[in-house]
């Protein structure tokens, strides 16, 4: 009898051990919805990677790795053929096929947030249940990058009407919808419960297709903690196992703590200031723009305000991107800046206004403040106003100030995207230059970017995009500051390093907790 009891206990013990680990995680925000197509944001994409698998996904070194597509090949300039994995189940139990991919792409084109990314895509062609041709309307170099946004949804699950009689596939931003509150994907986790803004519980999907994944997390409890110090405190007090992002000023403390594991990685969000040439005629003068750039000690900002958790930038795209030019020299030189101001005829300087957000980028407000004092040294007296992001973008669009801060992370993870939004001549019809509040406009640069957008030859494309960065550098088109680092911190037993990446999508399905 005793023996039996022992075995029973041992069995129970083993069973619980095999169930895996619970990961308590605190992020700065939780996903806005459970419908992956309702909003394009970092939080939503992180969620989507947990509950839905993409066709292919980025690896750490900016390559692609197969997920639901086991391989893919370009068969002509307009077509890429994707071969899909067989035997993949959705959370609902339905089987994944090419029809789900086609259905998902159709829905993406209806989504207000995603349709812009998929404008060059035509209707895909289903070859058989596990083969699909993705077709573009013109030669398009970024099909693979865009395929990382195709997270097939369970088309059967989302078809029909719910108990309120509303269509299940409706994409609704501000009201109830079936898809906002229910999900079925092929991802490693499914949502067990969700209380928006308070807590979200994910459970591991038992029938997950990727049996090779070493991930052993069976449950994730996500708590959004917006306040930086509180988030750090939660990790230090063992309230949670994993936090992101880590504020720069706390890196030292977390990094030196031997019970914790801190990982940082150069990111691709570039922080810049735009000098409005229309609003402030002084900035139309190349010499003045060069002086401004020479006056801004962006390496100093990185070293001091960012505590080294950023990379000083001279261009838009970071290393690893197609347009990155390795030999662009740093330009900070205060004496030269004063000299340039003199040559431009502004020896006594002038007054200007600046706006910056105070809750959008890491240390945004402090950075703006530092730049104000740097510019004062060459006689440009700047009056600064900072505001929360909810109010900022309207003011930004209205161009209420002469110098405006903007950070940019390309959704496509591609060099051309920066210039399209930040540097091309503003054009209401094409939508180019949508965030170009500097009103910098150079036809040559526009031409090069447009060429790059239809160039499928990698080498030629790199040459085009590098030329773009050089022109912007020579024209002193904007003031580049730095690329923000991404950062994560966790308990020692959480093996973070292998699952994090420059896109800031931790692949928690593969996370190993000891």
């Amino acid at each position, binding site marked *: 009898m005793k023996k039996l009891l022992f075995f029973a206990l041992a069995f129970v013990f083993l069973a619980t051990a095999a169930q895996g680990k619970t990961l308590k995680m605190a992020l700065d925000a939780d996903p806005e919805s459970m419908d992956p197509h309702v909003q394009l944001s970092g939080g939503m994409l992180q969620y989507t990677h947990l509950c839905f698998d993409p066709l292919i996904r980025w690896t750490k070194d900016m390559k692609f790795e197969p997920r639901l597509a086991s391989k893919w090949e370009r068969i002509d300039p307009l077509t890429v053929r994707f071969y899909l994995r067989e035997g993949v189940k959705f959370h609902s139990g339905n089987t994944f096929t090419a029809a789900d991919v086609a259905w998902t792409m159709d829905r993406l084109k209806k989504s207000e947030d995603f349709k812009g990314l998929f404008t060059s895509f035509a209707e895909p062609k289903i070859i058989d249940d596990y083969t699909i041709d993705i077709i573009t309307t013109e030669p398009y170099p970024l099909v693979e990058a865009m395929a990382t946004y195709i997270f097939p949804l369970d088309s059967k699950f989302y078809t029909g009407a719910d108990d309120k009689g509303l269509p299940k596939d409706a994409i609704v931003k501000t009201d109830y919808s079936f898809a906002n509150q229910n999900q079925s994907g092929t991802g490693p986790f499914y949502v067990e419960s969700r209380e928006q*803004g308070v807590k979200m519980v994910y459970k591991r999907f038992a029938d997950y297709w990727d049996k090779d994944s070493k991930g052993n997390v069976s449950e994730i409890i996500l708590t959004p*903690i917006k306040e930086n110090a509180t988030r750090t*405190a939660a990790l230090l*007090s063992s*309230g949670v196992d994993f936090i992101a992002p880590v504020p720069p000023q706390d890196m030292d403390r977390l990094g030196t703590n031997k019970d914790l594991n801190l990982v940082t990685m150069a990111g691709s969000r570039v922080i810049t200031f735009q000098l409005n040439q229309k609003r402030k005629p002084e900035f139309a003068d190349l010499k003045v723009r060069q002086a401004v750039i020479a006056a801004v000690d962006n390496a100093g900002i990185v070293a001091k305000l960012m505590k080294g958790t950023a990379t000083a930038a001279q261009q838009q795209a970071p290393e690893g991107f197609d347009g990155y030019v390795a030999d662009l020299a740093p330009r900070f030189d205060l004496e030269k800046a004063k000299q340039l101001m003199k040559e431009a005829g502004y020896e006594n300087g002038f007054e200007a206004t600046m706006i910056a957000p105070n809750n959008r980028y890491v240390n945004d407000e402090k950075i703006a403040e530092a730049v104000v004092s740097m510019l004062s040294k060459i006689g440009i007296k700047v009056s600064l106003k900072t505001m929360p992001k*909810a109010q900022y973008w*309207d003011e930004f669009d209205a161009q209420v100030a002469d110098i405006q801060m903007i950070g940019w992370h390309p959704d496509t993870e591609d060099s051309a995207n920066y210039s399209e939004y930040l540097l091309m001549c503003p054009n209401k019809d094409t939508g180019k230059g949508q965030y170009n509040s500097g009103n910098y406009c150079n036809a040559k640069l526009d031409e090069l970017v447009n060429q790059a957008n239809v160039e499928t030859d990698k080498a030629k494309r790199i040459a085009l995009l590098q030329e773009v960065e050089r022109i912007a550098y020579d024209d002193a088109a904007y003031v580049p500051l730095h690329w923000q680092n991404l950062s994560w911190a966790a308990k020692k037993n959480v093996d973070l390093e292998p699952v994090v990446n420059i896109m800031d999508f931790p692949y928690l399905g593969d996370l190993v907790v000891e």
Partner: protein
Amino acid sequence: MFAFIVRRVLQAIIVMLIISFIGFALKQNVGDPVRELTGVSVSAAERESIREKLGLNDPFLIQYGRFLKGAVLEGNIGQSFFYKKPAMEVILSKAPATIELVLCCSFLIVVLSIPMGIYSAIYPKRLLSRLIMGLSTIGVSVPIFLIAILLIYIFAIELNWLPSYGRGETVNVWGWESGLLTLDGLRHLILPTTALTALMLPLFVRLIRSEMMEVLQTEYVKFAWAKGLPRVRIWFVHAFKNTLLPVITVGGVQIGTMIAFTILTETVFQWGGLGFLFLEAVERADTSLLVAYLIFVGIIFVVVNTVVDIIYGLVNPMVRITGRK
């Protein structure tokens, strides 16, 4: 009394109308909700069409008219953009967290401020009195987020005794998510309550002390001494009862303020209540939620102040409730 209540209800409705009107007028200044609902790369035209769809482009009076119609006919005071739910539902789901916090805090204030205030009034020169007054001054002058973060630092990080964020485990009692009934919930309550109490307590200690000192000098207290009544009876029955009027007044306003604006405490402790909700609504430009919230808070103030007015009459028979004929 009945006429008095009817009058107050009417006034409350007018207050709500005024608040909602001003709220709508302010809406534009908080920011653009559509911006918060879309990714950065979404085109301006696309955003415009969403704005059009949500009716945000209509003239102010038309939007307000639509709101009034919804409020009167369906009892719907707006839809939270971020929560994708009726705003009232969101507010009611967050209210218990704040109300529990404020109740615990008020309890502590009552329990602590009365003895502290009375003691320092009776023996103003004693060391303990000076200590109470000194500490209460420090309490009022240290910013709440500093107190909060120090509490977290000491009790959560260094000593690891108490949790640093959130409400912990809650139990649903007839739709009320309560953290008072579980050990975990109570443990989570300790730090935020302490921080908030430290901020609010000094005012009450000081108020009770100064009122009490005044009352102790009045004729009827002296008369009571002369009559040879026991000290405790004089202090607590004769004197203390007469200090209550201003204490209740200030208390009423402060409790209303606490319910509404525990913003900083709730933010630091990630306490999912109304203050937190308010700040988030401002930051996300969730304007409909904001207007609903303002109306809700307006009701709280009218109710609290009405209750205070009624209590005046009970405590001090010399005060006639205005409007009660």
